[in-house]
């Protein structure tokens, strides 16, 4: 039954990568990247259970934390054009 979950996650990953390639705006690509990160965590746990080595869940946890930071950093870059912007420059928005 872990094989079924792995196949479903792989199919969903294919669709998410297709959206990341096609996506008309940059936000579609960021959204698809976030979905790929979530599916990678689930794929790590599914393959870990399938091969009988559930210790891979630790890698999944680390990847989840990095995925959040990465997505927010990319969004901040595209919103402000800079990762180290000053709040007082941007008080108009």
């Amino acid at each position: 039954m872990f094989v079924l979950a792995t196949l479903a996650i792989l199919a969903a990953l294919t669709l998410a990568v297709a959206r990341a390639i096609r996506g008309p705006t940059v936000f579609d690509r960021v959204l698809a990247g976030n979905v790929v990160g979530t599916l990678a965590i689930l794929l790590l746990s599914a393959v870990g259970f399938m091969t009988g080595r559930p210790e891979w869940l630790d890698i999944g946890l680390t990847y989840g934390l990095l995925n959040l930071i990465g997505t927010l950093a990319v969004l901040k870059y595209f919103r402000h054009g800079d990762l180290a912007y000053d709040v007082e420059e941007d008080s108009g928005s």
Partner: protein
Amino acid sequence: MMDLLSDAVSWVLIASGSAFIVVGALGLIRLPDVYTRMHAASVIDTLGALLLLAGFGIQAGLSLITLKLVFIFVLLFFTGPVVTHALAQAALHEGIEPVLSEDRREKPEQAPQDPKQEGAIEP
């Protein structure tokens, strides 16, 4: 008997979680604009991940593995809405309009058409 029961329950959970994940990914492809695609992606983040991880947890039994699965679910459950909110805010800030079947917003630039008439109403 107990093994058979827990196997059946986790089989149902994993199968329905896989179905929700595939449905969310199909929505990511099929839906028309970025806001509706966020809605489809949140299905993967919450319901798909919850059902899959619950099925894995029943398979693992009560141990440290289950605790790690709970940690992964809590992480996904709280970071998904944060990322979706930031994404929607950034997209609105960039000026991307949602696709609407009818526009119910009031247009403030069309309401006061004639300033002279408005001045006549004011005493």
